[in-house]
């Protein structure tokens, strides 16, 4: 079987635009007004191992108040990537990579209004993301309702490690509205609406699609993927949290997603938080996710340039993912009178099972289009220490 030399480099593991999203999620507070968040520091060690990829690293956050109106947050995050995923082993060669992300955000509290500004910079060898965000949060009438809105804009640069002259950009815009509402003294609900709009070079410079080709032994040939240069998506989520009499919390949520690429997705989450013996808190969560494929996605096209747009990214295919997660938190310090007011040690483990309905595992020899459907499992570990000072 002939192996093409097109990409001696690597295939980007994280889709470009999602990197800036991590920054957006971090900066945007989407949080309660009326009191500034407490001073705290968190040191997290994260690890992902699944489908041939291993990514781990630290995430460090420090939040400090200055006076009673201003709070600053700094975050430093690193991904050390070692990837031999399905796309990498079938079209390129395993690689290692390091991505670094730094964020700074500023909160200003005036009466019941909390205003936030944030900036995130993410760097790796072939992708740079700069994201700026702003958010405003307001408490209403007895603080039973918190309305929050935010806007974020990302300017990203996409490069190609195998082609020094390749340079493209992407602009992402995020609009978000969320509402948190106290329903009863034991029940909280939250609603969120988010519209995201991307413009620019939205595909992956290394990824390819395949088409049927009787002229070669293996029966198919690769060509570069072609994506539209715009994408607009809308997501709506509803969440609830209920306090159980013996001191425990039951929580659940649903999110609906749709975009202009034809992807529709549903996310269902259910969880149980159980404190034990003053110092311990245990968490159990279940998450179910399903999505339909993008209009221009196909695992195997019938001929070259079959359509205007072509994609074979498994993240755009029809698939489901299910997660079972457990967590334990130990509070080693409570009601401290010195510098350390409170401290906790935490461990979370999540097991995620991905099952693809129209993405095939081409590392297995078979007739084109008859390879087994791909599936893989991932283990995610979060080990962290939090201190409040």
């Amino acid at each position, binding site marked *: 079987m002939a192996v093409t030399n097109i990409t001696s480099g690597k295939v980007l*593991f994280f889709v470009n635009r*999602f*990197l800036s*999203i*991590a920054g957006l*999620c971090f900066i945007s507070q*989407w949080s*309660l*007004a009326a*009191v500034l968040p407490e001073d705290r520091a968190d040191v*997290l060690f*994260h690890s992902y191992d699944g489908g041939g990829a291993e990514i781990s690293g630290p995430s460090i956050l420090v939040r400090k108040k200055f006076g009673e109106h201003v709070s600053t947050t700094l*975050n430093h995050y690193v991904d050390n990537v070692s990837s031999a995923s399905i796309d990498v082993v079938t079209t390129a060669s395993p690689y290692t990579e390091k991505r670094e992300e730094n964020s700074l955000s500023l909160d200003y509290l005036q009466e019941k209004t909390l205003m936030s500004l944030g900036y995130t910079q993410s760097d790796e060898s072939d992708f740079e993301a700069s994201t700026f965000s702003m958010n405003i949060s307001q*408490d*209403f*009438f*007895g*603080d*039973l309702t*918190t*309305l*929050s809105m935010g806007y974020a804009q990302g300017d990203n640069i996409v490069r190609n490690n195998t082609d020094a002259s390749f340079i493209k950009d992407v602009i992402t815009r995020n*609009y*978000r509205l*969320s*509402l*948190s*509402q*106290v329903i*009863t*003294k*034991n029940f*909280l609900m939250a*609603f969120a*609406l988010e519209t*995201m709009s991307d413009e620019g070079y939205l595909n992956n410079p290394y990824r390819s699609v395949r088409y049927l080709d009787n002229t070669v032994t293996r029966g198919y040939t690769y060509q570069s993927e072609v994506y539209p240069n715009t994408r*607009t998506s*809308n*997501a*709506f*989520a509803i969440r609830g*949290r209920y*306090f159980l009499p013996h*001191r425990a*919390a039951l*929580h659940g949520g649903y*999110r609906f*997603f749709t*975009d202009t690429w034809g*992807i529709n*997705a549903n996310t269902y989450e259910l969880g149980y938080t159980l*404190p034990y013996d003053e110092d311990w*808190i245990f968490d159990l969560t279940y998450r179910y*996710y399903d999505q339909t494929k993008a209009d221009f996605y196909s695992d195997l096209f019938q001929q070259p340039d079959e359509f205007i747009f072509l994609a074979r990214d498994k993240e755009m295919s029809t698939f489901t*993912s299910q997660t079972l997660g457990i967590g334990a938190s130990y509070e080693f310090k409570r009601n401290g009178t010195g510098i350390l007011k409170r401290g906790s040690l*935490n461990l979370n483990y999540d097991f995620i099972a*991905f099952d693809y309905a129209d993405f095939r595992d081409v590392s297995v020899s078979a007739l084109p289009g008859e390879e087994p459907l791909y599936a893989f499992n991932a283990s*995610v570990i*979060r080990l962290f220490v*939090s201190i409040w000072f």
Partner: protein
Amino acid sequence: MNNAGIIDMRKLILLSFMLVSQGCSTPWVKPYERAHLADPIMNFNRDPVSNNYIHHVYDAREGARGAGIATGGGCGCN
């Protein structure tokens, strides 16, 4: 850029603001009844760094994005 999308958002924001202003004139949960709501286990976003990371894991591997953890509730203080 989908201009229609932006206009809808603005109307939606103004509408929510109006609904909320009219709806809640007297708090039906008194501040002294908020002990349970102020409990850390009732916090949607108890560990922000950890939550942000797991959302990043999903965003990177799934097609859907956005409308992640929404927080709030508060302690009713001030």
